[in-house]
């Protein structure tokens, strides 16, 4: 069975080592905060100047001066700190974050990322911190559903939507697979049980390669 959005987040979270500094993009990546592995200190950065974002506050603890990039109330972990925007983006652009976990509309087999606009004529585009994060973190990984609702592949030969950054994505977590972006294109590391490789390929525009040690992609019920 395909992973739920929360399970995709869970799978991405498993790869976060103790002590890593991570920025979670808006949308699917935000769910990672709720499924962090226990017994590891993982420092979440929020682009608006919060380092060490903690869990959502209880109703009595809400402080509207303490929000995340999505403007939702958060808390601060012991050991966390506040910086101003310019310093926050110094962290982001200067490769001080070990990892940015981002959402995407499309990822190309060369690692190109498109996640900021679909050129919807009804709405002006917004970019936020997406381009800074994509260009600046030590490593970029993407959490995304393998296809759109109507089945169009999101893992492409080339991105159709406007790019956020070129050749930055190193790993993709989808509801069907964990895929690395290598010099030889997409390499499937893990795959859910109830789909075969050809079926996965059929849902992917770019060519997939099977990793020699291909593993099942499993997640607990969440």
């Amino acid at each position, binding site marked *: 069975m395909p992973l739920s959005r929360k399970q995709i987040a869970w799978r991405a979270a498993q790869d976060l080592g103790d002590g890593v500094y991570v920025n979670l993009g808006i949308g699917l990546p935000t769910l990672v905060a709720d499924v962090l592995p226990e017994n590891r200190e993982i420092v979440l950065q929020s682009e608006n100047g*919060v380092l060490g974002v903690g869990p959502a506050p209880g109703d009595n603890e809400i*402080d509207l001066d*303490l929000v995340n990039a999505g*403007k939702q109330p958060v808390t601060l972990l012991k050991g966390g700190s506040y910086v101003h*925007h310019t310093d926050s*983006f110094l962290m982001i652009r200067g490769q001080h974050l070990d990892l940015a976990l981002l959402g995407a509309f499309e990822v190309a087999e060369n690692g190109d990322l498109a996640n900021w606009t679909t050129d919807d004529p009804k709405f*002006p585009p*917004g970019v936020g911190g997406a381009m*800074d994060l994509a*260009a600046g973190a030590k490593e970029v990984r993407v959490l995304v559903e393998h296809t759109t609702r109507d089945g169009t592949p999101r893992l492409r030969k080339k991105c159709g939507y406007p790019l956020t950054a070129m050749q930055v994505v190193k790993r993709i977590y989808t509801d069907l697979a964990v895929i690395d972006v290598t010099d030889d294109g997409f390499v499937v590391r893990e795959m859910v049980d109830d789909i075969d490789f050809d079926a996965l390929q059929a849902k992917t525009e770019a060519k997939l390669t099977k990793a020699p040690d291909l593993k099942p992609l499993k997640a607990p019920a969440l």
Partner: protein
Amino acid sequence: MIDKRVRSLAEAVDGIKDGAVILAAGFGGAGSPEALYNALLEQGATDLTIVNNNAGTGRTGLAGLMDAGRVRKIICSYPRSSGSVVFEELYRANKLELELVPQGILSERMRCAAAGLGGFWSPTGVGTRLADGKEEREIDGRRYVLEKPLNGDVALLKADRGDRWGNLTYNKSARNFNPTMAQAAALSVVQVRQFVELGDIDPEHIVTPGIFIDRMVEVPA
């Protein structure tokens, strides 16, 4: 004697001219000087350029200025958000110019102006539509685009505590754009939650030194 405190919101925004570039602090509601935005509406300046991360929500504050036709141009990273109805109306009616800037570059361009620099080479946005028309160069094997300083005529700011020299502290993530905008404007005006005596803020804890502040008005939370 240095005393940057003024007694009213009207005095705080006095003299802001038509056509001014306003560095408008805040990230959502956090650190957003709503009282100053509303006072600026009262004051009447028009043809403004607003620099903010977003483009206002609801019909007060920045959105109120826009709704009253006072804003010619918005420079921001993310105009559309839940409640950005005024922006969307004006944008569709072609009554508002929009300059979209990646969030970190928005902040860095203001810092660049504040630091007296002529521009910087940035890796953000290289190869994307937002780099269109920007000079590009390769430095040590990596591609960069040239970004220009962005300075304001006025900064409108919100802080937590402030003394008569203009020394400021902030509350949590309400810090956001405030310290950099304070440095990047010719006239920096701040609404503070609480005036305190000179010396009450430990010099080690001052986030914005008074040199960057021109006027302060107390607006209790």
